[in-house]
């Protein structure tokens, strides 16, 4: 997966453009189901960026959990509530007189542009090489050559030693979420039956 350094910017630019365009497509596509599918494209592009950062395990997890797991569940949920007005939500928003959509858009654009400008300023004003020296990452290339193929093993070791408590907390959280989702759905079924009776 180690690419030649002169050509490294081409896949980066392609994947970066794909992720940003697909995210924008998620926001601006008039059809809600298609918006969900463009989001899959954005997540796959970000997984490609993880491959470029030598994070193979995270990249595969990104595809499995985000692109296939979360987004497909969201698309299923969209299809379960697919009224016409729900699917073509943007044109309905524009027709809605009560909603002051233009003011909201202009405000959001100003806020986002300002935040982006601030973040870019902070990123470019920082001397990252000095920080890399402090964190001990200045021998970047040699260490990478040594360790890039053992990252998955490294993640497994750290997760069961240094990060054991967060790891177990995550498993408890997932169990609680499972029970909580069942309770949320089941309660509703009971009230539906009561309404029918």
């Amino acid at each position, binding site marked *: 997966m180690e690419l030649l350094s002169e050509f490294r910017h081409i896949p980066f630019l392609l994947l970066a453009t794909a992720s*940003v365009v697909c995210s924008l497509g998620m926001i601006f596509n008039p059809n809600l189901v298609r918006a969900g599918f463009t989001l899959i494209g954005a997540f796959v592009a970000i997984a490609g960026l993880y491959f470029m*950062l030598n994070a193979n395990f995270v990249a595969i997890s990104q595809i499995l959990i985000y692109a296939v797991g979360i987004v497909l569940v969201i698309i299923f949920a969209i299809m379960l509530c697919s009224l016409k007005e729900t699917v073509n939500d943007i044109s309905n928003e524009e027709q809605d007189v009560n909603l002051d959509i233009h003011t909201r858009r202009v405000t959001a654009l100003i806020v986002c542009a300002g*935040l982006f400008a601030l973040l870019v300023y902070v990123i470019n004003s920082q001397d990252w090489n000095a920080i890399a020296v402090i964190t001990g990452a200045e021998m970047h290339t040699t*260490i990478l050559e040594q360790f890039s193929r053992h990252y998955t093993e490294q993640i497994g070791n750290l*997760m069961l030693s240094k990060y054991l408590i967060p790891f177990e907390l995550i498993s408890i959280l997932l169990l609680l979420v499972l029970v909580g989702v069942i309770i949320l759905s089941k309660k509703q079924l009971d009230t539906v039956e009561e309404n029918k009776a």
Partner: protein
Amino acid sequence: MDITINHYLTLSALLLCVGIYGLITRNNAFRVLMSIEVMLNAANLAFVTFAHYMDPLEVKGQIISLFVMAIAAAEAAIGLALLLLIYRNRLNIKMDSFTSMKW
């Protein structure tokens, strides 16, 4: 052209801003949920970038990004359950109609 940490962090900032824009402007609860996922991905990208450039020995940022993924899955499950519940009760999922807890 050499790709440095600045490029990755700028991309992460851009994705975060796109997510915030969608979160503020869209009135459909599903789009808001998906915008939150984009924002979480932007944060994850920053974590993995820092793990690659600043911490190549112990890649702690990659582990944190895996935790973020697990929490995002939990958040999506609870969020979708709530949305389906609201949809069954109100028959719409506009963010403006969830005002019964406003005082």
